[in-house]
């Protein structure tokens, strides 16, 4: 077995004393420890090779003019300074932030509301919960194509029939409105998962609290703000943080609905990095963009965790 072959530096000394019965206990302990190292070693190596090293490579090549192949030379921070003067990059960040913040707020507000309702005294509770989870079972890209036809064909046809001029052309073809379509798809798809997480959270709230609440004559809204929300604040924090992180990296939605258009009005940062990096020969440049993007996402998450967790405590 692997334990006998392995010899970590920590247990080399005791390994030699293998025959000694007196040290049996310690030996056993060290063998155990050695097994634990073997359990994590392959995972650590693979993670380093396929995650950590690529990240470091990414940061490294962001300091070069590499097109992704062949020769390259160091260009210092000039990729970074160029980013800030690039209108396409700025427009991608503006679209991404606006999309992600609005979608995060909408998803969490909707999911929390529906979760509270689904946790109420309703008939066919399990079936309804099952129905609301369906969007999460579907591929964003594929259901995105369906939404694209809805926005491009069905919605304008319906609006024309109802006499609503504003919607009689496809919103995806309108540079001012196309992002709304992406928000709708994202909210439709992501609310499903968040509902289930909130339902899980609601089930951790002891019923006794509500019983006490109703004895004191608290209204439904009052019970929500004074009992439910404080009790599930931890779930709210984690959902907000994860939703924002995921939405900031929006990719499939954009490719399915608009492919970044019209023009570059709905090009998200991930889509820009993908297009520029793989098709535009901007390997080094887009890696600088990705490095900035990584810092932005970590900063957003840290900020959210601080603000939301502080509120958790104060409630």
């Amino acid at each position, binding site marked *: 077995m692997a334990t006998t072959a392995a010899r970590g530096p920590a247990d080399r000394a005791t390994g030699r004393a293998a025959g000694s019965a007196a040290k049996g206990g310690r030996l056993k302990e060290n063998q155990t420890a050695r097994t634990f190292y073997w359990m994590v070693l392959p995972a650590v190596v693979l993670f380093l090779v396929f*995650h950590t090293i690529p990240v470091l490579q*990414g940061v490294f090549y962001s300091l070069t003019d590499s097109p992704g192949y062949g020769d390259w030379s160091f260009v210092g921070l000039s990729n970074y300074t160029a980013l800030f003067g690039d209108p396409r990059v700025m427009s991608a960040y503006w679209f991404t932030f606006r999309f992600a913040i609005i979608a995060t707020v909408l998803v969490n507000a909707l999911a929390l509301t529906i979760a509270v309702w689904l946790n109420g005294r309703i*008939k066919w509770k399990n079936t309804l919960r*099952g*129905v609301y989870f369906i969007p999460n079972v579907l591929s964003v890209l*594929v*259901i995105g194509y369906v939404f694209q036809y809805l926005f491009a064909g069905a919605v304008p046809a319906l609006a024309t029939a109802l006499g609503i001029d504003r919607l009689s052309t496809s919103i995806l073809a309108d540079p001012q409105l196309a992002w709304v379509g992406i928000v709708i798809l994202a909210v439709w798809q992501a609310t499903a998962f968040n509902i289930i997480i909130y339902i899980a959270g609601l089930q951790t709230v002891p019923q006794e609290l509500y019983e006490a609440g109703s004895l004191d004559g608290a209204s439904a809204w009052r019970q929500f703000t004074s009992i439910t929300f404080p009790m599930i604040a*931890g779930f709210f924090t984690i959902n907000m943080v994860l939703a924002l992180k995921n939405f900031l990296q929006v990719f499939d939605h954009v490719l399915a609905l608009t492919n970044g258009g019209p023009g570059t009005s709905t090009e998200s940062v991930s889509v820009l990095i993908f297009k520029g990096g793989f098709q535009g020969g901007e390997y080094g440049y*887009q890696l600088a963009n*990705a490095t900035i993007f990584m810092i932005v996402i970590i900063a957003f998450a840290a900020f959210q965790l601080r603000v939301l967790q502080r509120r958790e405590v104060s409630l």
Partner: protein
Amino acid sequence: MSTTPVSGPNTIAAPPRPATGRDPDGPAVPGAPSRRRRTRGRDEGDGRGVNWWLTVLLIVLSLTIFIPLYFTVVTALKTQDQLGGTGFALPTEFAWGNFAEAWRLTNYPRSALNSAAITVAAVVLTLLSNSMVAYAIARNMHRRLFKGLFYFFVSALFVPFPILMLPVAKQTALLGLDNQVGLILLYVVYGLSFNIFIFVAYINSIPRELEEAAVVDGASTWTVFWRIIFPLLTPMNATVGILTCLWVWNDFLLPLIIVSDPRGATLPLVQFQFQSQFTTNYTVAFASYLMVMAPLLIVYVVSQRWVISGVTRGAIK
């Protein structure tokens, strides 16, 4: 105390719950599910006290979910000349041929087999490997190295994929992993961050006495893990398995950047590749979309209750 979450983000995922983790059968029957059972019994046991307004409201709202699905089904069943109007009308005659054409055009069997094989392999390998890594970390949190590893893996949750994707695409091509095998490997490795996070929280609630007793009887650490811990992880394995399955089957970005040979394409990737041909022929496109959604949707409908409880359990932990 083993039920206390380590710190940092962990505290968020594990809101206060009763300390049943100490109970001998704690991990199998944590506090929350028993409370849920009580609630459900009271709510569904009798017809009285049912909030019908809320029920109707929720049913009406669920139409927002069914409308796009209905649209997909009716469009897939229409002929080209039935496509006028809003598109919501029922087909006057069924064009079953759309499915046959989509099947042939996109070579459905090959991409479906790719998707299925990658999903099954990724789920199985994830469960076997990620739980083991989490076990080693959870039981050695007092050692600086393992504690460091925990934060190393979990902090990767916040490293956005775009920084990785350009170098990883080059690297997998270099290593000859720009195929299905490479995808499976990457799903297993990239799942580590999140899975370790939730497996560790769960393993912390399993009392150590069981393992100690087995060790006294002469069991090795491997035996302890495979014979005692892994079976106890079944509920969490279900959660991780479901989430991994949904992720891998539906994922588009990773196959897009990794798979170089068109024969290795997964179902979502094939839809993307055929998009230009589909724009002129969108009844066939919808037949194709429906065939992509259907397998997992059918599995979900059959196992719906189990899926929901699996995901819910993961969230409480």
